[in-house]
């Protein structure tokens, strides 16, 4: 639920130019829950990350897993989707479910250099604030992280973070808390009133 103060702040912002805020982080960072909390608070937000659907389409078209040579094509299509999302937003506040510089993390994870298109897009399309969600602590000891998947997911997260530094941002790290607490943290950081949640 949007509080009156928050609704007023969003209304005032809507009359002005665009403010674009990125929510990013590796898998298992609790991004989906936070996006849901943002939407619940009726703050404008990009709901679905375009990469998911594009990934599914690529898989379906290829009929196999993505190979090294397929990944640039995939990332360019994702880049187009992010640019389109970016340019469509003209007024007021909007949160973005990942952003253009996530492409640096994708490329780095697969040992690929950034494409000229990504470099150019990063120069042209700049977000106002980037929020990085650090991975949520799971109830396990660090020594239990034995599955390659878990280790790799941590690595993905760090490469995404590095991508934003490479892109010239200084991300704000959002502590691993509940989605509601994280949203309050973000609102405080942006000097926005906290969403009202009723009694």
């Amino acid at each position, binding site marked *: 639920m949007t509080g009156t103060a928050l609704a007023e702040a969003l209304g005032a912002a809507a009359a002005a130019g665009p403010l674009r805020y990125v929510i990013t982080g590796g898998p298992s960072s609790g991004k989906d829950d936070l996006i849901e909390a943002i939407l619940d608070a009726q703050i404008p937000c990009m709901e679905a990350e375009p990469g998911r659907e594009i990934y599914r389409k690529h898989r379906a078209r290829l009929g196999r897993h993505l190979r090294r040579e397929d990944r640039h094509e995939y990332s360019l299509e994702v880049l187009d989707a992010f640019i389109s999302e970016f340019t469509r937003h003209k007024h007021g506040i909007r949160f973005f479910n990942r952003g253009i510089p996530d492409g640096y993390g994708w490329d780095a994870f697969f040992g690929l250099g950034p494409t000229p298109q990504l470099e150019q897009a990063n120069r042209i399309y700049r977000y106002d604030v980037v929020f990085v969600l650090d991975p949520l602590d799971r109830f396990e000891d660090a020594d239990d992280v034995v599955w390659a998947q878990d280790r*790799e997911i941590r690595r993905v997260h760090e490469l995404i973070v590095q991508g934003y530094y490479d892109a010239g941002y200084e991300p704000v790290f959002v502590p691993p808390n509940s989605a509601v607490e994280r949203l309050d943290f973000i609102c405080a950081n942006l000097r926005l009133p906290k969403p009202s949640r009723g009694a």
Partner: protein
Amino acid sequence: MPKKSPASQDVIYGLQQVLRRGLPVTSATGSLTELRGVVARAVDPTDAPSRTSALNGLLQSLLARFKDARYAEAVRALFGLPPALPGQNLTQRRSAAAVSAGHEVHHFRKRVEPRLIEQLAADLLADADGFTRTKAIAPRLTPAGARPRVPADPFAWEVAEEEEAVSRLWAAIYGLRAELVAIERLVSLGSEEAQIVPRAVTAAWMWGRASAAAVAHGQAYGRNDGQTPDVMLSLAGWTPPLPAPLATRLREAASTADSRREFLASVRGDVELGNAWIRPFLSTAIDEESR
């Protein structure tokens, strides 16, 4: 390319060098740019400025997430991040850090600063550990606890798919190894050719499958970490050296056959391949007998 991360003392020394001028680091700082986490983050790991840029990102991200809340702001100021101001020298940054931590500046420099640098060095080394790649070691397995959940995220899908591929690759390598061990056991027992040859055929099938899995893995996930398909296959054990065209024929026959029977049917007429694969196993047997 570094194979081993620097020692703790080297990292502490590197951080002390960084501290003199503060962030951003403008030139290569010895051991710090050798850290695996830095190399992995660099857009071009062979390029010193690229590694320096990666080091800046890593240090900023670690300082932004410094775990000791009491000293988080102080350590950031010490290294030149806000609340320190751009262009401040070490004396000014240290003074800002001491104020932030609520200490007298000499006490801060002597007692607190070394601990903060040690903590940051430990964070750098822990990060480097996360970037250790052990591709030539089969994944360590532990009893399953909770059901694993793959987040709905393209990165996570790719990571999960790679783990599938790695698991299948190692399954194929161990399957091949089992057959190669069986052959050498039969040879050691002085078994008849009629017992060894069927095992060698099975080993050929397993080799072809493992080889196809290794090639596919390299094509999909090759990250220049030195694990070529040949290196991966050699982990299974000794096999007869095959010229490239024969290796290709064997790999193709094995990867398109759903069973050993199908594989055998497809290679039965290939005398050149049969001789190249089976004879060396038998000649090993003869060598053993002649000892």
